[in-house]
Structure formats: structure tokens, C-alpha cells
């Protein structure tokens, strides 16, 4: 269906793709995997006509084509679903889908016929998308299905999905995969770009691995396994399992009793939550996203927006409920937020500035009366220390945070928060958008931190991650803690049932 031959692409002289060869057989689901920056997105953007290749050939159904823009690719039946959706939020599904390809005359847009066609396409795949609804009223999973419909409406026979599961909950991911299998059954060809190995093994027929701009392997999925793929991706053996000694919990550090967060109209997104976290243990929170985990972490960190917090929060037996974020941090609460772009970093500021966020009023960085002066040499020293200790690459203190990959951004945040030597670390989605090498590193540091006597509260929508890391696991549903389980002895299925409230896990 699609073949890339010896594709080379350089950005400012640096090769992003170096003689890439890729063959996608028709009617298959082909996974393209690699670490961040391995060149997989670049290769796919070339296949979609978004970038021109410096050299090499693109073959579609056995014939060589030159692409000057995505139009050429669309005409040949190639569609792409971008990682960040290309949708206009206040417009309807149908308006988004026909945009650029409007049916009717220049004086009268014929949305009715488009809506009928979209309904038919949606029904065929069981997508349950109403073309008259507005994008902003749809869930993330539904928006992704609109993107799929957009490609299908343009009669795509080959669909490229760039990191389609990065923004999805486990349930929405499962639903997406069901849809992709249906599309394959209809004869469509699908390329899925990802770095999550479990997904590769779950969905794909074939897999191509890239590293440093080159294709380093091609396998039939049935004939490979996670360890081999990880080795190909990273170039060395990777520990996919977390190895940790038994926890040695000491005195309670965090005590939470009857915690509730109430929003306008009496809506309780967190209700009657009580638990404690001891020094030297990791308490995990499992649950489907949107069941109060975010509100819990925000309430503990002092970041609740637009809601009223009630109940007790104690750190070392002292109430911190009414304290500001800065006061809580000064007492030893650090926070690795779930959305690092919104809360973790100032993307356009350099690494030095990001490395002292929240420590910018403490010596040795801040000195003088009122801690008025910032010492540039100390900032630089501190930054270099964090970059080295947490293996942030490239370790250039003057680069903007935006220039780092997701994994390196996360390592910088973790480094900054741990540098404060917290008693309690609140860590949410620590490895979201982080590649395998980075995941291994971050997991190891979290366990080391535990063993050094810190109390950790870990929230993750990756069930495998929380069960592997947590010493005790709390399951949340609808703003409440519905169970405490031992992650060693409880099966994924049981936890899944608790998360969904007994109904079969979707």
C-alpha cells in the first residue's frame, strides 16, 4: 500500500530521517515505534506530504509519487490523524469534516447531504457520532473519532495515526482499538505511531522500529515480544518491570480525613476521602481519569480552582488545609503535576529559570534583604546539578524548556522537586508522554526516594504503572475511595472491576 524508500530528511543539517525504508502491506495495522526523537513522526509527515524529503522515494500502491503538500497525499487516499487534533471547537462535527472540501455551491453550503454521509460512515463503524454536535461538547475520545471520520470522508484508504493514545484513557484506548480493527476488517490500512509497547503487541500485525532516524528493525508482531522491541528502541536491554524491595513504612506523614471538594451547585468531585501516607511508602491511586484524582492532588497541593475544600489535611500531624501553595512547599510538600505544560514548566523560559521555580525565594539562589537578589552563578550551579543528576538531555541550562522532549521535561521537574528534599511527594501521571528509557529512569528514582524515607502519593491512569510502583493501592471512583487493595496479590481484572463499579471493564 505504502512504501518509503531510502527517505532522508535533514533539519538544519541534522538528519531526522536517515535512509528510512518502510513497507506497509495493505489491509494491515502497522506499528511504527521508537523513542521520542527517533524520527517516526518525521517519516509519517513525509508520507503525508507535510514535509518534503531531501532524497528517497514514496510509493503508493507500487507507483512512485511526488508529494508537494498534504493535498497530494489526500488525493491518493492517505489520511492522517494528528496527535493534537485539528478541529475547530465551536463548529459542528459536520462543519469540521467538510471544511476545505465543502459540498454545494459557493453561495449555498449543503451541510444536509454531508451530515447524511457522515452518519452513514459513523454507523458503519459504530462510532456513534452525531454530525450536528459541536466539537467542544465532545469528549477527547469522540473528538478523535471525528478526526477518523474526517479522513474517511476524504476517502482515505490508508490512515496514519500519530500517537493516538497519548490523550486517551485506558477505556477510550480500548474503544479506539476496537474501531481500528473494524476498519482493518473493511480493508483499510492503518499505520499507528506510538512508543507504548503493550499497545503495539495488542493492535498491530507488523511493527517497524526506529532509533536515531534509522529503521533498526522490522518484525511480525506475532513473532516478537516487548523485551526485544524495547531493546531495539533503546539500543540496550531495558528493565520493563519495576524491581523494588519491600517497603519499610515509618511514621505517618500525610493524614487526610473527610476531604471533600465542592463546586458550584453542590457538585462534589471529591467526597469523604480519608487515608494516610507513611514515610517510606508509595501509596497509589488507581481509577478511571476524571474520578476525583486530579481534584485530590490539587486539594493537597493547595491548587484547587473554583471549588471549596473541606476536611482535614495534616502533614506530620499539623494541619495544612488553609495554607498557601508556597507555605505548603516550605513545609515539605513537593508536587509533580499531571499537566507539565500547564503547571510544571514555563515552556518559553530556559532551564535555569525552570529549575528554580518554587525555590526562587530560598537561599542560596535568593539572597539579601527580603531575598531580593537572585544569584546567577548559584542558579546555574543548581541547574547543572539537577540536569546531571537526572540525566536531562541535552544538559544546556540556557535552552528553553520547550526544546526538551517530554521525558526530559519530566526529569527536569522531578529533579527540581526532589532538590527541595520533600517529606511528601505528590506525583501525578509521572510517565505520561515519556519514552521507555525515561520511564525506567523515573520509576527507579521514585523507588529510591521511597527508600530514602519520603512519603509518596502516586496517581496514574496507567494501571500497570500504579500496580507496579505502589506499596498500597487505593481505588477511586466518583470522587470516593472505594477500596484499598494489595497490588502484589490483586489482579488487574479485579482492580478494573473496582474502578468501573462492578460493570465489566470497558
Amino acid at each position, binding site marked *: 500500500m505504502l512504501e518509503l524508500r531510502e527517505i532522508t530528511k535533514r533539519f538544519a543539517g541534522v538528519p531526522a530521517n536517515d535512509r528510512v525504508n518502510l513497507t506497509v502491506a495493505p489491509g494491515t495495522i502497522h506499528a511504527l515505534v521508537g523513542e521520542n526523537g527517533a524520527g517516526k513522526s518525521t517519516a509519517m509527515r513525509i508520507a503525508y506530504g507535510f514535509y518534503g524529503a531531501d532524497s528517497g522515494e514514496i510509493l503508493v500502491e507500487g507507483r512512485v509519487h511526488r508529494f508537494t503538500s498534504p*493535498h497530494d497525499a489526500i488525493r491518493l487516499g492517505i489520511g492522517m490523524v494528528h496527535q493534537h487534533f485539528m478541529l475547530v471547537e465551536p463548529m459542528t462535527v459536520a462543519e469540521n469534516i467538510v*471544511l476545505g*472540501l*465543502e459540498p454545494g455551491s459557493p453561495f449555498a*453550503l449543503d451541510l444536509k447531504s454531508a451530515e447524511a454521509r457522515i452518519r452513514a460512515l459513523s454507523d458503519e463503524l459504530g462510532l456513534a457520532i452525531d454530525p450536528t454536535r459541536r466539537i467542544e461538547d465532545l469528549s477527547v475520545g469522540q473528538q478523535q473519532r471525528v478526526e477518523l471520520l474526517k479522513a474517511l470522508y476524504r476517502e482515505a484508504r490508508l490512515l496514519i495515526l500519530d500517537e493516538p493514545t497519548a490523550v486517551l484513557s485506558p477505556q477510550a484506548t480500548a474503544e479506539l482499538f476496537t474501531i481500528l480493527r473494524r476498519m482493518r476488517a473493511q480493508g483499510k490500512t492503518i499505520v499507528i505511531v506510538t512508543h507504548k509497547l503493550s499497545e503495539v503487541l495488542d493492535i498491530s500485525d507488523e511493527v517497524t522500529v526506529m532509533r536515531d532516524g534509522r529503521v533498526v528493525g522490522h518484525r511480525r508482531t506475532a513473532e516478537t515480544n516487548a523485551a526485544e522491541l524495547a531493546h531495539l528502541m533503546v539500543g540496550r536491554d531495558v528493565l520493563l518491570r519495576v524491581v523494588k524491595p519491600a517497603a519499610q513504612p515509618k511514621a505517618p506523614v500525610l493524614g487526610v480525613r473527610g476531604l471533600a471538594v465542592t463546586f458550584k451547585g453542590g457538585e462534589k468531585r471529591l467526597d469523604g476521602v480519608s487515608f494516610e501516607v507513611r514515610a517510606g511508602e508509595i501509596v497509589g491511586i488507581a481509577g478511571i481519569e476524571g474520578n476525583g484524582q486530579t481534584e485530590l492532588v490539587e486539594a493537597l497541593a493547595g491548587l484547587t480552582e473554583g471549588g471549596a475544600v473541606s476536611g482535614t489535611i495534616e502533614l506530620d500531624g499539623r494541619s495544612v488545609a488553609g495554607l498557601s501553595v508556597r507555605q505548603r512547599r516550605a513545609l515539605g510538600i513537593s508536587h509533580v503535576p499531571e499537566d507539565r505544560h500547564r503547571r510544571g514548566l514555563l515552556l518559553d523560559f530556559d532551564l535555569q529559570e525552570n529549575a528554580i521555580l518554587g525555590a526562587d525565594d530560598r537561599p542560596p539562589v535568593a539572597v539579601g534583604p527580603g531575598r531580593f537578589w537572585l544569584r546567577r552563578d548559584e542558579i546555574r550551579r543548581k541547574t547543572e546539578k539537577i540536569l546531571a543528576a537526572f540525566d536531562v538531555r541535552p544538559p544546556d541550562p540556557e535552552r528553553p524548556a520547550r526544546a526538551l522532549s517530554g521525558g526530559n521535561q519530566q526529569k527536569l521537574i522531578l529533579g527540581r522537586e526532589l532538590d527541595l528534599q520533600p517529606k511528601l511527594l505528590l506525583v501525578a501521571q509521572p510517565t505520561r508522554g515519556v519514552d521507555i528509557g525515561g520511564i525506567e529512569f523515573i520509576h527507579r528514582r521514585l523507588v529510591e526516594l521511597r527508600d530514602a524515607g519520603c512519603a509518596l502519593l502516586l496517581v496514574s491512569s496507567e494501571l500497570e504503572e500504579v500496580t507496579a510502583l505502589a506499596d498500597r493501592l487505593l481505588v477511586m471512583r466518583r470522587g470516593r475511595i472505594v477500596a484499598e487493595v494489595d497490588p502484589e496479590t490483586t489482579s488487574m481484572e479485579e482492580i478494573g472491576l473496582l474502578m468501573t463499579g462492578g460493570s465489566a471493564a470497558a
Partner: protein
Amino acid sequence: MSILLILLASAVRQATPLLLAALGGLYSERSGVINIALEGLMLAGAFTAASVTHYSGSPWLGLAAGIAAGVLVALVHGVACIRFKADQVVSGTAINILFLGVPALLSGALFQSTGATPQVPQEQLLPIAPIVLAFLLVPVTWYVLNRTPFGLRLRAVGENPEAADTAGVNVARVRLAAVLLSGALAAIGGAYLSIGQSSLFARNMTAGRGFIALAALIFGKWRPVQTMLACLLFGFAEALAIQMEGVSQVPVQFIQIVPYVLTIIVLAGFIGHSRAPRALGVPYQEKR
């Protein structure tokens, strides 16, 4: 009864130039380009229309010339903002300041005056046409925005240009068309002032109407019908102030400020919130 009728008729006349400029601004801003230059565009239209009518004796020719002037000035704004990604507020402000001066300069050269054009005879003034046009344009604009491919692209480009780009829409072309349209409409509004409501161009005769039109546009949440209502409200206050001059105990200024106070209250979010097109003011950098 008759006094009320006179008041309403006056309100419609006062609202007309505001509505034309505001609808112009609507096209530009819904496409994502801030058009703070409405004031300058109106002045360009007003001065050109009055001058050409004076020479040709035809208000229609004058109107056409005024529109041409508006489009030309809008082209400058459009090229600066779209092609060269200039700051849209700065470009608009520059045009506003420029057209405070340009008519004065030209009228000095052409008519040996310090900013006014000679009087145009009564029979050479524009009839009721601009008023009809302005109010007719309200449903037309609604239709264009919501029922034509151009309108769909315009809205898409103003909300999420990247999405429009990947769907094959030429963002720059749509935006430029919208900005030129806004130049034409604002210029008609200006021409109505100089060769409709009065009979000559006087220095700075728009007296801030371009900004009021902008306020009406925001008050009207960038939607045609609501924008018209906002213009009528502002027009009514203006008409009331004119009628009450010398009659009322209350200083007219108090009546004149009512709509503006209202605007500030609205913008401060007390009465529903007004959401601007998401990409408003953000230049779009094409990929590749």
C-alpha cells in the same frame, strides 16, 4: 408619538455608519485579524467620497471611490498583518493616526483648506441607500457566515487556523479577503457620514465612531444580529442626546455615556460573557 418617531428615525440614521463599520470589523475579526483600523478606514472613505463627489458631481462615483480607498488602506493593514505578521493593534493604530493627517494634507493641496472639503450640493448627496444597505447586510452577513463555504472557512480560520490549513484552506487568502471586505464596508460607513448625513468632509468627522463600532462588535459578541442591536442602542443614545440638547436639565453628556458604561459592564463579564474568536490577533505561521 411623533417625537418618538423622530427619535427612532434619528437613531437609525446615527446607527447606520456604526453598523457598516461594525459589520466590516466582524468579517475581519471573525477571520482572526483585529481591526482597530476601522476609524482610519472610515476617514479614508469619507474624505475620498466627498472629494470625488465634489469633482465629479456624482455621489455614486464618490461612493465607489470611497470604497476603493477603503479597500486600498485595508490592503496595507492586511499585508502588514498577514504577510508580514505585524502586530495587528500597532498596524491598525498607525492607520488611524495616519488618516487623521492625510485628509488634512490633501485638502490643503486640493482645496486650500485645513482639513475640510468644499460643500457638496444637496441634490448630489447619497439618498437613503446606505441605510437600506447597512440593515440588509445584517441577514446577508449571517447567511454568508453560516451558510456558505466562504463563511465556514472564515470562521475556521479565525478559530483554529492550523486546523483549516491541514484541511486545505488557504489561511492567508481567506484572511486577506475578510480584511479587504472590512475596508470596503467601513469606507461605505465613512462615505455615508460625509456625503449622506452631512454634505462635506470635516476634519476627524468620524469622531471615534470606528472605535464605537468596534465596541458594538464586541458587545454584539461578533454576531451580526446582536451587533446590529448594539449599534442601534448606541445610535439611540446619540439621537437622544441630540434631541435633548438644550431641553433637558440633565447634561447631555450623561445620556451619551450610557452606552459606553453599558459596554464596559458587558465586557467586564456581568451580563453573559463575550468570547472572541480564539485566533483573534494571532498571526498564522504556515508550516513546511
